[in-house]
């Protein structure tokens, strides 16, 4: 089921001050996809999720899930969360400590007053789906973090909602478990035809899990697209900086031709992939991700985007070496293969692939 959000506004009052959590949010969340709201803490992503599920009431606007209006300020409609028939996984999992695994998962079915047999069949089936078969009688709080997370998922899925919402569900797990659980979650969700709305501040989670990502900042959605688009093609400085590691330099467009823009920057001229809005004379920023900075082994390589710099630092982090290189007065992050034989103080030649140098506005 798709979710349509129109002109949503929400203010909070905290210690006498008005804080805008959602500022004119318009959003179409496509059906049966994994959709992620990504942004730093306090950007409004959790507020938006809670408005969708009905735990918060927006001040203005309209929310439509499928073809049902669940909130509309104009039409004076507010459907309470228990009537919206959604599933949700909370950051804390919200596993009820006084119930065992079976009762936790059975709860949504019991609220719908389903016959006992059907409840137990569906719970068994759902627990098998999340690989917790046989855990029915365990006290839910005695499970490990990852298992509790799956109980919360089972509980959100058991009543077969058309939409499931996740509020930073992996943030309480340790790094290794988080990675495993993320992969699991992806495979669980891809086997169901369900719309998933996922809130996170972790860009790796957002990129690896989602079909579609919306980046939020100060209560607004500032960019939306596939993970690939967001990572490579964003034209916004905030997005490029927030997602992945990025070297961002200020510059001015000198000329534009045949899809390439030539930009004057502190380290010299850089050739970038052009954009429609790029016109000569405009002040912009250039984004070069460390993974696209190549070390040239042959001395004195010529051509576009070749620079010479001094290695300022180099750290071996296992699968790669991360370093800083100084070109003129600008330090850039770069990375090389772990076996590359360079050391601090070396002068090296670098090249940036123009296809992966992007222009950023504002």
């Amino acid at each position, binding site marked *: 089921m798709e979710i349509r959000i129109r002109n949503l506004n929400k203010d909070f009052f905290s210690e006498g001050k008005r804080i805008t959590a959602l500022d004119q949010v318009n959003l179409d969340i496509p059906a049966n996809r994994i959709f992620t709201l990504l942004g730093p803490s306090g950007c409004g992503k959790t507020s938006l999720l809670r408005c969708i599920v009905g*735990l918060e009431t927006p001040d203005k606007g309209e929310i439509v899930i499928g073809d049902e209006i669940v909130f509309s300020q104009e039409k004076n409609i507010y459907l*309470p*969360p228990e*009537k919206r*028939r959604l599933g949700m996984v909370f950051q804390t999992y*919200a596993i*009820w400590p006084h119930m065992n695994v079976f009762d936790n998962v059975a709860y949504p079915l019991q*609220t719908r007053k389903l016959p006992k047999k059907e409840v137990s069949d569906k719970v068994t089936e759902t627990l098998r789906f999340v690989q917790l078969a046989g855990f029915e009688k365990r006290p839910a709080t005695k499970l490990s973090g990852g298992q509790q997370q799956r109980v919360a998922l089972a*509980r959100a899925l058991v009543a077969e909602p058309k939409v499931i919402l996740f509020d930073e569900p992996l943030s309480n797990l340790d790094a290794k478990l988080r990675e495993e659980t993320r992969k699991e979650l992806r495979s669980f969700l891809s086997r169901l035809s369900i719309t998933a709305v996922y809130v996170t501040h972790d860009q790796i989670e957002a990129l690896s899990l989602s079909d579609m990502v919306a980046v939020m900042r100060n209560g607004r959605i500032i960019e939306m697209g596939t993970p690939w688009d967001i990572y490579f093609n964003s034209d916004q400085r905030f997005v490029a900086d927030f997602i992945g590691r990025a070297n961002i330099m200020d510059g001015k467009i000198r000329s534009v031709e045949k899809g390439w823009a030539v930009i004057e920057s502190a380290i010299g001229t850089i050739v970038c992939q052009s954009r429609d809005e790029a016109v000569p004379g405009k002040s912009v920023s250039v984004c070069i991700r460390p993974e696209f900075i190549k070390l040239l082994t042959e001395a004195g390589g010529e051509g576009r985007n070749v620079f010479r710099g001094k290695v300022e630092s180099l750290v071996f982090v296992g699968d790669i070496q991360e370093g800083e290189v100084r070109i003129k007065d600008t330090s850039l992050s770069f990375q090389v293969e772990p076996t590359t034989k360079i050391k601090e103080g070396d002068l090296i030649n670098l090249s940036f692939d123009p296809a992966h140098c992007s222009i950023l506005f504002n």
Partner: protein
Amino acid sequence: MQKTNRPLTHVLIVIVGFLTICPVIMLFLGSFTEGLGAFGDFTLKKYIKSYSDPFLGSIVANTVIFTSGSALLATVLAMFLAYLNTRTNIPFKSLFGILSIIPMMIPHVLFAVSWALLLNPSNGMINLLFKQLLGLAESPFNIYTLQGMILVEALMDLPMAYLIIAPAMSAFDVSLEESSRVCGASNLRTALRVTLPILRPAILAAITLAIVRSLASFAVPSVIGMPGRNYVLSTHIYRVIATGFAPDYGMAAAVGMSILAASITLIFLYRYLTSEGEKYVTVSSRGYRPTVIDLKKAKYPMFGIVALLSFVLIVLPIVVLFYTSLVPYSMVPSAKAFSLMSWKHWIAVIKDPISMLSLKNSLFLGVAGATLGILLSIFIAYVIVKVRTTASGFLESLSFLSFSFPGIVIGIGFMWFFVYTPLYATIWALLIGYIATYLPYGVRPLSSAFIQIHSHLEESSRVCGGGALYTMRRIVIPLLIPGVVSGWIMMATMFVRELSLSVVLSRPGTEVLAVQILRFAEDGLWGRLSALGIMMIFISTALVITASLIGAKLKRVNK
């Protein structure tokens, strides 16, 4: 949501305000009048009379020695026990849990009586034994002294002090000590320079609370202090209102004002210290195992001390009382004593209408009082934890205030109030007084229960399709039950054994168990006292077990 809660907060402030402020105001006003009959005529006579009393100096001196002595002894013992439990490899650690809980169920008046039975100079059992064995002419021990009072009071306050110090010791980050050791300090130096200073807020909090407790204590001063003419402030007030020809409530109020002032000051100090303590507690997030000190050869001797303390605190009082209830007069256990045993005292108690009335009254006060008190506490705790406005903060302070009320003093405040109402000399006067004085004991477990109910637990139920009422029934109430049960048990057992407030408010027809026990002690009817005492312990235990069973059942039937 906020809108619907505002009236609730205000209603609660009015109720709790009445319960806690009203007796204080009445005490204050009463202290400036001639007596109960002459309310409203301002006079300073009672202050002049009570504070120019030549004996007051020695009474205050006694009070200071008694309260500080017992508080220090209780805290030192508690530190010793807490250290053994949290930091050493002493065997049978489960004993410490029992040691810190069970003594609270033994009514203080009975605990004090059992010591009097053992160590009183005329026929205390231990004294008799020594006289028999060694052929002494005089009793070697006399409990009816200031030292005796300090010993018994300290043993009674020990569990409370332990419950403050032990958590602080186990939350203590051992790496602080380890770094001191790495810096080259010895075990002893580390203890003195690092461990003790960091635990200081907890230790001072335990001492402060123990002083407040012993200042309010009436059982030990009356049962052990009065026979030896060692008066402290609480028994001084008692003497003013309960002995002699005309009870002087004006003078009692005038003396009470300074006890109340001291007590409230100490409680503020305690609150400051506990909030200070939180700053020091460095709980690391990752699970760490504190290094356990190997006691080696001292292991079993140390355990012997703990076992002895448990015996003295739990087993001895009950055994002594039971034994005394069966023998015709005080005698050392012997073949002769066993042959003389009978149920004579038990039968006398059962046939005594006043004892039976007191039993009935106390049972009613325990059950009805705790139930009403807990109902009130549920609402108060809800407002304090979940509403969180300025008004709810005020309510929190109000409901905490009675924590500092010495029973006998606040009883006099209530006396001034009830005399002008039809409640005077009814059981309802006692009920209201009990709830007012012991309200924090109900609010505390319920506040922590509400804190545990994270808002996500309720929200998740809403998303799962449970409406507000359904969520209340299946999520909120079941999660509250443990708090309700422990709060109810705490209040019910305190009400069944309540003494200090009751000695003021209890009138013919509203006798309660502890007061009746005190009467028996004053008359030297030790056998009947013990029989009634065992019944009292039995009732408390039965209430605890019933409440736990009902709680367990309610938790299971929540579907």
